[in-house]
């Protein structure tokens, strides 16, 4: 038996060394962790209310308001701290939805083959080749603004991403000896797909999730910036930038600078996390 302190040191040292070689992964974890922490703790760490007006209108950044105040006398720092909730909620929910639908269709298409596969692939390729943002704008414009509709629009536009990976991996895994073995032992149809193929495609699918979240955050920000998000006064980075745009000509730089930096940090974090995960699990073909 190894005693506890010694045992934990043995376990921690290689992990630290491993992480030391994975600077991109560590950077991604730190940025994403920071954003998630700030967003979750927003009610406790925001110095002021995100929606209630304070004393100063359009005050420049200073000791009382680090990021300044907006034209409705609201504290910009507090709005930035609260402003990540909607983008993160929308990005996570839509990514989970498009992963589930896209992967299921991809497995089915790749495993079944034939006419179904050709039809689905054609539709997915067409959607994939079209700009995600323009498709999302069109969908959300018809559904109307709102969180649920943004989730639906973003989920739809990213389904093809998962479809392509799931289908490609299924085609590859289907030829493996162990799948053939399972089939020789009498496993059929859905059972082969569920227990022998799908689990072996998951690594490749999960490898793109973080990139997808980064992309979804930018798409949400674009939608909110164009006015397809939640109605005011809900804080949302993209919408707050649109609000600040009107005051930019007069030189009120802080209204757009800080919410924008928050988007960059979040999107950069998820991109680095994706890169780091990709490096850690090695090339997926």
């Amino acid at each position: 038996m190894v005693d506890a302190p010694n045992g934990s040191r043995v376990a921690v040292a290689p992990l630290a060394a491993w992480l030391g070689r994975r600077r991109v992964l560590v950077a991604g974890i730190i940025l994403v962790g920071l954003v998630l922490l700030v967003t979750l703790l927003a009610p406790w760490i925001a110095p002021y209310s995100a929606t209630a007006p304070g004393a100063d209108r359009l005050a420049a950044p200073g000791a009382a308001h680090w990021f300044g105040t907006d034209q409705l006398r609201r504290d910009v720092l507090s709005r930035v701290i609260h402003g990540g909730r909607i983008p993160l909620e929308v990005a996570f929910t839509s990514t989970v939805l498009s992963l589930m639908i896209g992967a299921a269709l991809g497995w089915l298409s790749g495993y079944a083959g034939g006419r179904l596969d050709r039809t689905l692939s054609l539709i997915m390729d067409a959607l994939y080749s079209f700009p995600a943002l323009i498709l999302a704008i069109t969908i959300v414009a018809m559904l109307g603004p709102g969180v649920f509709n943004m989730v639906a629009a973003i989920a739809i536009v990213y389904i093809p991403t998962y479809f392509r990976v799931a289908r490609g991996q299924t085609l590859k895994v289907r030829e493996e000896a162990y799948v053939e073995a399972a089939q020789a032992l009498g496993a059929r149809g859905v059972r082969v797909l569920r227990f022998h193929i799908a689990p072996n495609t998951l690594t490749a699918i999960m490898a793109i999730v973080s990139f997808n979240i980064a992309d979804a955050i930018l798409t949400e920000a674009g939608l909110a910036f164009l006015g397809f998000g939640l109605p005011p006064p809900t804080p949302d980075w993209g919408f707050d930038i649109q609000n600040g745009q009107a005051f930019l000509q007069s030189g009120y730089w802080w209204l757009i600078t800080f919410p924008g930096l928050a988007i960059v940090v979040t999107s950069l974090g998820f991109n680095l996390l994706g890169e780091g995960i990709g490096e850690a699990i090695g090339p997926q073909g």
Partner: protein
Amino acid sequence: MGLLRYAFTRVLLTIPMVLILLTVVFLVLHVMPGNPVLVILGGRNVPVALIKEYEHRLGFDQPIYVQYLKYLWGVVHGNLGESFSTGMSVSSQIALHLPATLELSFSGLFIAALIGVSTGVWAALRQGGVIDQVLRFTHIGTYAIPIFWSGLMLQMVFGIFLKWLPTGLQLNPVAAAFFQPITGFVVLDTLLHGNFALFGQALLHLLLPAFTLGLALSGLVGRVTRASLIEVLDLDYVRTARAKGLPARLMVLKHALRNAMIPIITVVGIQFAILMGGAVLTEAVFSWPGIGSFLLQSIKARDFNAIQGTVVVIAVLIATVNLIVDLFYALVDPRVRFS
């Protein structure tokens, strides 16, 4: 398979792509809730008889498949219908806005290639070094930045604080009022008019939006350039050239980069879709009168025919660019045709 036959098949393959997108958008617009007639008539207290009359006039009272087939018939004949809000033909309105978008996209693409290829080559030559690491983060950074925000920041710094560059539109409002378009491409038209002062003005107006768009895409181009150049630098003929004593810089420019260009151009072609998405946001930030601005106006007005028409035109545009890239690829690399 011969090149011609490949080209023919490839052209045929773009038709289902455009058709599928057209169908998806048609369904989105016609099946999802939202009555455009109410928007046109502007309000809730509209007499039912008037709504019925408008629905009849616009063809909304017909079964959905009849509307679909009619629309398809029009598209095949180059007729995208009439705009609900202006009464003008959608195709002529798009034709009016398209040159501005093309001017912006291609100059954006040019800037992306300029920044991307040069930083990519630099990173590849310093593979594993500090510069390579810094450029890697920079490249990732460029696509983590929301394009509308980088546009606004550039506008703020160069337009509002430094006052070096205009913050929007293609020309000054006064100059624009007297401007006689020839092709619709403002930069080109000012040259055709022989008006160099106006040409300079048009270029200055183009600079910030094009740079915004180009910057967003430069990271991706940079990464592909780096990866593709590193691969080529390791090939036998490059090593032979190096062994023969060819200086590194000359070797990169003369031998390696030319071969590394194929994957770079392919990626740039594929990214044309992202470019079009970015163009919509860039146009919104810089009041650029392209089809992105037209699309947003049409969405605000719930102008179904205009929205549909714009999406179809963007789909055709993307399909065409992808087609050109694929054909170029097949022309340069004979292996493509046999796979």
